[in-house]
């Protein structure tokens, strides 16, 4: 029973990590730098969701408002900073993304304080499915995450802009000479990234708390999942996120609660030593 409960928690955590890792792997593959602001974008999504939830009380409104607000923030980040750094080394973009993350955290800290906020959702009686207790909220959150993932994969693999994104990820020079406008691709990328981190942030806020540092703590597991899944592989990022989430939860009886994050670090190092291209990545992308 306890292990089943841990697996269930792990899947919830894994979906959050997977969403964050998906956003990370897309930026890594298309804009070509590790986006260290992703954690703080997630936090921003959580606060935006909380704002809408307190105003309306509806889960749908919460999700939509968080997605719109975070996508706009993400687009603003691109136009204000990342577009100006186009053509610079990935280090410059990485350092700038850390800076943006700090700024987001500072603004959230000054505006909402450092206290821990919670979504005050009424507890409902859990469903019993095949002997496992599942709370309706968890189920709704998991389904929303799956719907978000489905939408993201739909955009990536079934729309024209998604095809263009994948073309830029494969070979940006070739994409440019075939007439793909990189600015439109980048704008679409950052909107998508904002939406993904927003959903992850709202889920994280509902599962735990909303505080200025919560996103930063997801950053490392998300990086680990993006690399474990193989940079540039969307399905890999989600799969690795789920594996990491479940592994983290299952490890708690053995290593204790505080070392949960350490699990993703160990996985990260092991993957880098044994199979740096991850589960689904291409070998030439990692050197």
């Amino acid at each position, binding site marked *: 029973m306890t292990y089943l409960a841990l697996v269930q928690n792990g899947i919830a955590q894994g979906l959050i990590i997977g969403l964050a890792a998906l956003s990370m792997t897309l930026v890594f593959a298309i804009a070509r730098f590790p986006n260290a602001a992703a954690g703080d974008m997630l936090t921003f999504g959580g606060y935006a969701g909380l704002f809408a939830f307190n105003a309306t009380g509806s889960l749908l409104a919460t999700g939509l408002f968080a997605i719109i607000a975070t996508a706009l923030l993400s687009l603003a980040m691109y136009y204000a900073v990342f577009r100006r750094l186009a053509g610079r080394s990935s280090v410059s973009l990485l350092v700038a993304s*850390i*800076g943006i993350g700090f700024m987001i*955290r500072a603004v959230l800290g000054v505006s909402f304080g450092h206290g821990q906020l919670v979504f005050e959702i009424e507890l409902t009686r859990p469903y019993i499915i095949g002997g496992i207790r599942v709370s309706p909220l968890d189920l709704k959150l998991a389904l929303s995450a799956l719907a978000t993932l489905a939408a993201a994969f739909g955009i990536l693999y079934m729309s024209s802009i998604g095809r263009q994104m994948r073309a830029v990820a494969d070979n940006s020079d070739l994409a440019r000479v075939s007439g793909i406008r990189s600015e439109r691709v980048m704008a679409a990328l950052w909107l998508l990234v904002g939406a993904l981190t927003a959903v992850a942030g709202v889920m994280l806020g509902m599962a735990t708390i909303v505080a200025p540092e919560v996103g930063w703590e997801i950053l*490392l597991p998300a990086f*680990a999942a993006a690399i474990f899944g193989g940079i540039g592989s969307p399905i890999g990022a989600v799969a690795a996120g789920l594996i990491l989430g479940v592994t983290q939860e299952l490890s708690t009886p053995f290593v204790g609660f*505080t070392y949960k994050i*350490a699990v993703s670090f160990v996985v*990260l190092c092991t993957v*880098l030593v044994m199979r740096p291209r991850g589960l689904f990545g291409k070998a030439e992308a990692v050197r």
Partner: protein
Amino acid sequence: MDAYLAAIVSVTLIHVLLALGLTLQYGFTGLINFGMVGFFAIGAYTSALLALHGVPVVLSVTAAAVVAGVSAWPIGLASLRLRDDYFAIVTLGFAEIVRLALTSEKWLTNGVQGLSRIPPIYEGTGTAAAFIIVAILLAVTAAAIFLIHRVAYSPFGRIIAAIRDNEEAVQAIGKDPARFKIQVLIVGSALAGVAGALSAHYVTYIVPEQFMALTTFYVWVAVIMGGVGRVSGAVVGTAILMFFLEGSRFLGDFLPWISSVHMASIRIGVVGLALVLFTIYRPQGLMGDFTKR
């Protein structure tokens, strides 16, 4: 006032040591070490624990350098053969894990209560003792600057600069870049370890909270402001940063409606803003080479 001045200079010198370590790693070699604070913490705890068990401070600081350097070795092995940004992520994670371990392993580190009554660098009280401590820190910093100058203008220094500028070319002339990178990582981390040890003996108490990731990025801001790849840049950048950090403390006194918690947020925000603005508008820093970007 004299004591206050001595305190600022001492803290600045300790941060200059960190900035020198990062200049060696990032400025000269191109290693993106986002885990400086991890090695700083390892140095601080190593030296503090040894000194609390009766080891003389000179030896415990040396041991801190060795332990911090050795702990960098596996990190380098795991990630320095891959893309630069992987190394950045691994070091970032490493520093977080170090802090977790310092918080959890109570038998060794006393957890969140930390270690107190660490023997100071120089026994004694009053202004005279404070100035002797400044002199000792100044001597260590001068030695580090001398060492880094010697490294930069040696054949080794030319190879690491070549690795930064064109790694393929270095491979083509038959050198193994990863080996050199690991050596640089170890030396720079040992320097961070010394800085941590001196900081522990200077403040005389340490808690895990002193070793947050923010410290790493203070050092990054200092190096980027001062000028990447310049020893003078590391010194000037750190001085400017310390001026700002101390200034923000005074600002708190003048603007009482800003609480200390808010001030902490504002400090993080200003560090973030500095990182973004310098990356966009002045990537070569204040002391950097103005002819190239």
